[in-house]
């Protein structure tokens, strides 16, 4: 089993990631930490507890950073609505929060477990992770791997060049990519392949039960905002892709690259500048590309949609069975 801490800002696709992490027999979900991102910290934290209540998830939930480390805050209500999880009915929380700050929870948990056993899965802005690194630098060598949802090597969504999670706290993102641990970047290039298409939604519908209903309501809402904002026919299930990688590494292919976050550009603040080790037909050997030769990051490339769908369906099925 892979021990993970899921750091998230529910958030529609965060909710699906929570279901996958809690429902998969290959994952031991040590805790959930929340970070401001899709909505304010109060809203995303309340949403995290609500998803736990829907799905019968019982793990520590710790509330984390309310604002990015240096940048003023922004939220994504155009995609996720005023509550951050508009669409489904959200029950009241079934348990109290862990009293610790999310970053402290991460530090305590990583230090308490054996080195090389706990992976971090940040699927919101990386503020808590950067803060945890600063609170206890030793977690960098103890963490097994970091599988993020964020960035892109082709495009942005909040600006033409920047993806939302990185854009909200680019300094934190740069600190996470630069640290000496194993990072996999699951960016828009991969997650735009992970569509909740008709086939996947039907399989989930066939499961029946309150979790199935919840997931469909999630996809219904975010499907409509994605249609309006990005002209997608089906919503991408971004965050669950990162969790999926820890269940089954074959769920997507990867390529090695040196990733740096642009902090300065007028248009490109928050852009992940990805220099692939083996870029086909490319000579990235000019200017600052010469500094980007530390090909330590794994970039998620091509998704096996069938495998991914199987994991999501299976996790929801198991959680549903455990409810009864």
């Amino acid at each position, binding site marked *: 089993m892979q021990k993970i801490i899921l750091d998230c800002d529910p958030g529609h696709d965060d909710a699906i990631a929570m279901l996958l992490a809690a429902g998969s027999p290959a994952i031991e979900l040590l805790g959930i930490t929340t970070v401001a991102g899709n909505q304010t910290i109060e809203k995303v934290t309340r949403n995290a507890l609500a998803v736990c209540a829907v799905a019968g998830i019982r793990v520590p939930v710790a509330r984390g*950073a*309310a*604002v990015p*480390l*240096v940048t003023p805050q922004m939220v994504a209500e155009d995609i996720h609505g005023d509550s951050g999880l508009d669409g489904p009915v959200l029950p009241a929380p079934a348990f109290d929060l862990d009293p610790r*700050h999310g*970053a*402290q929870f991460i530090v305590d948990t990583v230090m308490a477990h054996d080195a090389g056993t706990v992976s971090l899965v940040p699927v919101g802005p990386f*503020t808590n992770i*950067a*803060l945890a690194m*600063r*609170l206890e*630098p030793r977690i960098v060598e103890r963490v097994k791997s970091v599988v993020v949802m964020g960035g892109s090597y082709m495009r942005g969504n909040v600006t033409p060049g920047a993806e939302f999670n990185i854009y909200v706290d680019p*300094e*934190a993102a*740069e*600190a996470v990519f*630069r*640290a000496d641990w194993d990072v996999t970047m699951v960016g828009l290039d991969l997650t735009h392949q992970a569509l909740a298409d008709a086939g996947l939604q039907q399989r989930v519908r066939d499961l029946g039960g309150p979790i199935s209903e919840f997931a469909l309501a999630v996809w219904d809402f975010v499907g409509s905002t994605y249609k309006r904002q990005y002209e997608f026919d089906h919503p991408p299930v971004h965050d669950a892709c990162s969790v999926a990688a820890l269940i089954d590494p074959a769920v997507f292919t990867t390529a090695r690259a040196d990733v740096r976050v642009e*902090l*300065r550009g007028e248009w490109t603040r928050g852009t992940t500048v990805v220099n692939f080790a083996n870029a086909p037909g490319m000579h990235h050997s000019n200017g600052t590309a010469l500094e980007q030769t530390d090909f330590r990051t794994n970039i998620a490339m091509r998704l096996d949609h069938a495998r991914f769908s199987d994991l999501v369906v299976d996790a929801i099925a198991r959680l549903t069975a455990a409810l009864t």
Partner: protein
Amino acid sequence: MTVKMILDCDTGVDDTMAIMYAALHPDIDLLAVGSVWGNVDVPTATRNTIHTLELVGRGEVPVAQGAAGPLLRKDTYFAYFVHGDDGQGNAYDGAPVGPAADTTAAQQIIDLVHANPGEVWLVPVGPLTNIATALALDPELPGLVAGVSIMGGNALAPGNATPVAEANIAHDAEAAAAVFRAPWPIIMAGLDVTMKVVITPERRAVLDAGGKAAQYLSRIMQFYGDYIGQSFGGWTATMHDTIAVAAAAGTLTINTAPVVHVEIDCSDGPSHGATVCDLRGLYAGFPPQEGAHCRVLLDIDESIADDVLALIAAHRGPGEES
């Protein structure tokens, strides 16, 4: 009416003087000290801080170890060439010290500020990493402190780490940006004033004639004054950090200190780490700036040096003769 204070230090020679002053002054209630990387690495700063407090009979003041490096970047910049390899001018007396507190510098700030709402001055005199960390952990902090008195930055004076930036700010510009942007009252005791209050050999003699703590301070200042003296005409020590303490304590006579907008340059260009102060009101007597909350010290009475040295020189430990 005592002023409650939490210091945050990268002890450091001038930090040592600042800690002594804060610990000994009858009108300062030194609640705790946090250590930070900067002049030296954080374990050395922690040790030197505890040692200094014990030396002046204030070993009960808790010292919590803080950040080992900048908030977000990887590179650390130490100044052993200024403060000595031991942070005490290569003259550390080797005395064993008591333990540090079982908390972090950032958490210590949060806990004490909440326990003393509206009363505590934070006085950071090293890189602002711990303060920014505390802010990140507790965004309500700005509304609960009395103020933040920073040794750092430079408005009109040249820089020291770079031509236009002072070391504390330059070495963790992102932390400084977060601290200066937060809505709390700030006093910036920067190079504009701290380079003008100098410890000459004459002033140093006051310490040599004082008690053991003062003599120790004088000894550790030798190496420091040799380095600083290169910017002046001979052995000279500056007392940067103590100015920030005195400003918070209200023991400093301040002549010119406008409240202005201050922004930190985080860009990586030649002015990285510069404190960009809006001093355009200079020619009109500094009209008020809406929303500004940083009081930038531009001119102070340098007799503070004599007050500080006299206080430290007067201290006698148990068993010491006057």
